[in-house]
């Protein structure tokens, strides 16, 4: 009886020792960082838009989904029959630029035509409006995809197939086996963080965004056209979401599909809330926290519980714990946006 009782303990200790091996820890850390990179890219725009304008953009996930399809389309068209990795990387960067530009234009147009007229209404109007936009974008995507014979709810394999071979391989970095795709995602995430950070701290518009996040009325009284700043930020936020979609189109865990809209929106909201509504610094910290926690729990579910269906639950557990312990989030302020 006592031997039987000690078995789970032994199994746990054995798994713990395995987890604490430097190579395992490094592998989990890299996976955590790559997830954090994806989360920060998905969430950056949402955070900027909410921080400045106080608008919870429920269409953000749908924009990421469109970015995945648009980016996928560009890579499929550009790669064609070519097999070399340089061509595929080049196609990826062209696709990112196209998706960023097209979805920034869509976001700017959406802000001017749909969101601007209801700034003075209660937040519920903005939520309902952007949720309605999500439904429209998803249905339009379904119609177009079915017209071209592509299954909307399945991963778009043609786009996945354009991924360079090197991203599907394990690479040895400092003695640690690292997935090429994870490294690519981390690099792309760092670029996104640096880009958004530079925009916020090194440009006049970034200054307006940070000032307007505190007090947009005061900013207007200083002579700044706040509505124009709103449009630029909405466009930038949706553009970054679209660029994130291009990266997801190459990741078999996500891939281009219509359900990608909801799959990305939920963790994006979790990261924004955990980081503190409307703070980009909080978004980066929360993406790291949620990404690394997610990676650790995935490893434990796979190696100890031996059940892989539930690791996503940890993302929401982080949210619940944060709401109880620190409702304003890691770097949250009591109030943001506001009109």
């Amino acid at each position: 009886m006592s031997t039987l009782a000690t078995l789970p303990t032994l199994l746990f200790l054995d798994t713990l020792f395995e987890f604490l091996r430097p190579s395992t820890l490094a592998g989990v850390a890299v996976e955590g960082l790559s997830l954090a990179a994806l989360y920060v890219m998905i969430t950056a725009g949402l955070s900027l838009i909410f921080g400045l304008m106080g608008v919870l953009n429920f269409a953000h996930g749908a924009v990421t989904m469109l970015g995945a399809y648009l980016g996928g389309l560009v890579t499929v068209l550009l790669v064609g029959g070519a097999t070399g990795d340089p061509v595929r990387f080049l196609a990826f960067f062209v696709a990112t630029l196209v998706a960023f530009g097209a979805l920034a234009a869509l976001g700017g147009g959406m802000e001017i035509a749909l969101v601007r007229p209801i700034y003075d209404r209660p937040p519920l109007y903005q939520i309902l409006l952007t949720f309605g936009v999500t439904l429209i974008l998803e249905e339009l995507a379904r119609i177009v995809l079915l017209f071209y014979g592509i299954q909307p709810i399945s991963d778009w394999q043609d786009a996945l197939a354009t991924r360079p071979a090197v991203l599907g391989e394990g690479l040895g970095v400092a003695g640690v086996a690292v997935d090429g795709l994870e490294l690519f995602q981390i690099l792309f995430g760092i670029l996104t963080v640096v880009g958004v950070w530079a925009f916020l701290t090194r440009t006049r518009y970034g200054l307006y965004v940070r000032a307007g996040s505190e007090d947009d009325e005061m900013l207007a009284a200083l002579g700044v056209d706040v509505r124009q700043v709103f449009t630029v930020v909405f466009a930038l936020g949706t553009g970054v979401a679209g660029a994130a979609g291009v990266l997801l189109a190459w990741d078999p865990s996500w891939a281009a599909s219509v359900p990608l809209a909801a799959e990305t929106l939920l963790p994006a909201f979790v990261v924004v809330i955990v980081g503190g509504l409307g703070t980009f610094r909080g978004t980066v910290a929360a993406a790291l926290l949620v990404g690394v926690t997610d990676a650790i729990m995935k490893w434990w579910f796979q190696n100890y519980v031996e059940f892989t269906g539930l690791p996503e639950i940890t993302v929401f557990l982080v949210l619940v714990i944060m709401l109880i312990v620190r409702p304003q989030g890691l770097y949250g302020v009591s109030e943001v946006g506001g009109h």
Partner: protein
Amino acid sequence: MTDGGSTVPDGGSESGNESATPSGESAVPDGEPLLSVDGVHSYYGDSHILEGVDLEVHEGEVVALIGRNGVGKTTTLRSILQLTPPREGSVTFRGEELVGLDTHEVAQRGVGWVPEERRIFAQLSVAENVRAAVPESEDVDAGLERAFDRFPDLRERRAADAGDLSGGQQQMLAVARGLVGGNDLLLVDEPSEGLAPMIVDAVAEALADAAREATILLVEQNLPLALDLADRFYVVDHGTVVDTGDADAVDADSERLRRYLSA
């Protein structure tokens, strides 16, 4: 507090604005006013706050807007800035109608605002607060240097978060921000509110300095301070101007003012 070249005559006859001068003895200068508010009615939702405000501010003047809490002084400033757009009446600045413009367009025409409770951007540095106010057409560094030349204390704390400044320093920052870009008219709302008496003196000095380069419309509960700074005053009660006159002609505890200012 106008400089030596003041256009404000001593004593003085009324020049227009009859409806707003029940007690007479207003010393409104002659000529085209810099700012003219005529019959302005403003609302918050269904609440009728301003019920026909009339006032004039001439170039080089400091004009005080005095009255009890909640009578419409701040709303008058907000209506000039179009933050609370009037539903009736006219606001002209240098002869140009402001009603119908956006707030940023009013500001771009040379109207600065030093709001109640200062409303500095607490999470931005001191320098960034000033930078945000420099017009896009101007060189940011030059604008910044001019502001720091005017308020040297701020230069020393230029990298500090504005939220970490003392109340007096925050008020200086708010005045500096209001003057950036060479604004011709500064709307100053309750600059002494919540400040220690010693700091109030420093703020008064800063406003007196500011008055050398800009015309000021000042809302202030501290009556001695308001009358000390101002050339003329308007008394606001129940959303309308009920008295006006030369600041030198009254003192803070005169019966004429007390009947409107006592609770």
